[in-house]
């Protein structure tokens, strides 16, 4: 993790509903892995104080002294509104890259990336890496409506097969990603699934992956106070390797990417009494 003041290289409207910020932050761009995130600090002296976490959507390392990271976001509340008001050349306080990202498989070839809404942003960075590693990439992305799908053109370019679903049928299949997931697995010969998006989608994708005996990596998004591992607000209930114990694990440092099979989807919001040594510790 690095903490410094980057500079906004560009701020663009991204499609109808999203904003894209590209920040000059060479150390972060060099170190970043797909699935990791950055903590941006909106301009200070606001009625709120905390940073805002955003997945790294893409890095551009072509010039090493001015390597950039890009995030794409949605105006949800005061934090994102304040970020959306920032302009090129504004300084921006940024911490990153944070967390454990997606793992590129050694022995498997066919990778399916599943995304939901603005949650799909890490897939661009991930797709590039998978392709660079010589993997086959397929894409399945869903959203409430067409305008909430992120950069469909780019997703089409990344995927050998790319499919979209929308809740209102405005683009692609009228329905949810899980409607198409079994047939996509079939068609693509999927050996690994990567998923990011809303929690119910991640839970459903994981269930299907387990059914098809395919490993699945999911990126969780929890409420984060610090985003650097010091507050314990961002935990998710995670089983140990053996599946014998359950514990609350920080999603900011030990995540945000987890093995979907080890997330206790049905234990969110419940008290946890079991205890186990921290995974990998």
């Amino acid at each position, binding site marked *: 993790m690095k903490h410094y003041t980057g500079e906004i290289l560009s701020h663009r409207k991204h499609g109808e509903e999203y904003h894209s910020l590209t920040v000059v932050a060479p150390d972060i761009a060099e170190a970043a892995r797909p699935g990791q995130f950055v903590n941006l600090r909106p301009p200070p002296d606001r009625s709120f*104080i905390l940073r805002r976490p955003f997945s790294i959507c893409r890095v551009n390392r072509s010039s090493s002294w001015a390597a950039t990271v890009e995030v794409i976001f949605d105006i949800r509340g005061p934090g994102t509104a304040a970020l959306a008001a920032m302009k090129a050349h504004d300084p921006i306080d940024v911490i990153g890259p944070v967390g454990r990202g997606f793992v590129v498989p050694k022995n498997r070839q066919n990778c399916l990336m599943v995304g939901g809404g603005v949650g799909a942003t890490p897939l661009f960075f991930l797709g590039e890496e998978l392709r660079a590693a010589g993997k086959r990439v397929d894409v399945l992305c869903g959203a409430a409506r067409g305008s909430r799908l992120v950069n469909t053109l780019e997703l089409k370019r990344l995927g050998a097969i790319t499919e979209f679903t929308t809740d209102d049928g405005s683009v692609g299949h009228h329905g949810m990603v899980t409607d198409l997931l079994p047939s996509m697995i079939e068609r693509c010969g999927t050996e690994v699934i990567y998923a990011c998006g809303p929690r119910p989608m991640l839970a459903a994708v994981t269930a299907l992956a387990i059914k098809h005996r395919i490993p699945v990596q999911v990126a969780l998004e929890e409420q984060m*106070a610090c985003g650097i*591992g*010091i507050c*314990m607000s961002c*935990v998710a209930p995670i089983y140990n390797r053996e599946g014998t114990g359950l514990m609350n694990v920080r999603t900011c440092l030990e995540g945000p990417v987890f093995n979907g099979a080890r997330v206790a989807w049905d234990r969110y*919001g419940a008290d946890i009494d079991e205890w186990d040594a921290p995974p990998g510790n």
Partner: protein
Amino acid sequence: MSGIQSGPVVHQETETVRQIDRNAELPARDGRPVARSPVDLSVMLAGVPLRSPIVSASGCFGSGREVSEFFDLRHLGAVTVKSMTLEPWQGKPTPRMVETPSGMLNAIGLQNKGVEYFLQYDLRWLNSAKVPVIASIAGNTKEEFVRVAGRLRGAPGVIAIEANISCPNLEDRNNMFSHDPKATHAVISAIRRELDVPLFAKLSPNVTSITEIAAAAVDAGAGGLSLINTVVGMAIDVETGRPALGGVMGGLSGPAIRPIAVRAVYEVHQAFPDIPIIGMGGVMNAHDALEMMMAGATAVAVGTANFVNPESAIEITKGIERFMADRGIRNLARLKRSA
């Protein structure tokens, strides 16, 4: 943080913080540069010499290791670690955090890996980082507090124990220890007997008279007081009509509570001028830390500010040094007298 000399081992006063930025010419209040006078930030806290009055607040600094990626922890007076219990605790269900105006509510529920894990892993790392440690302890019974304290006796680098007695007391219908002078007295005197280092009682502001609780803690042998823990609060999600936090109630922290914290420190200091206080609650910058010290705090703990800026503690330290240098105040005793 390059350019800052790293200081020697734990427990020893060093020149480190004093040397931060000494060469920089900083503008005085009227905009003109001034000659800097040397400033001594060292302080005696309940008989323990600290190189700086700025420490981290429990639960807001992880194990220390996470923040060490951002600066050398030796610039801190001490690291106060997350409250530890006898057994590991899993804490409360999520959501555990909700933002509020100039603050945040948390309902973490003291998730921690227990005192044994602390001794085996976290403390060893902190020792290797050469930073003094204030060990915060918690429990749901007096017995639990006593046993955690007992395990910490003689632990290397632990310069003080902070008893987080804002915990529900299972033996008193879940009332918090620190909400009752008798329970406070009982638990503090029991812990006290276990220790070979000073004991700080960390009090809750959610009481009718914090001086009454402070009196009980002092009478029971607390060598100092940590003021304040979070203020109990709550938020409701208006879309669902349900509490926004998994734990329903939460603890309010951050700048919103600073006036409440300053008042608590001031009142207790007026009542017990000789008892050292670690002041905390909404300290975000040097101004806030100075306010806390002028209210009567000997040391100042930085909590929520770390979430916003992990280098807060070090920037606060530098800011205090600058404030004093600009005014020709050479040490903290003089700073307080000038107030």
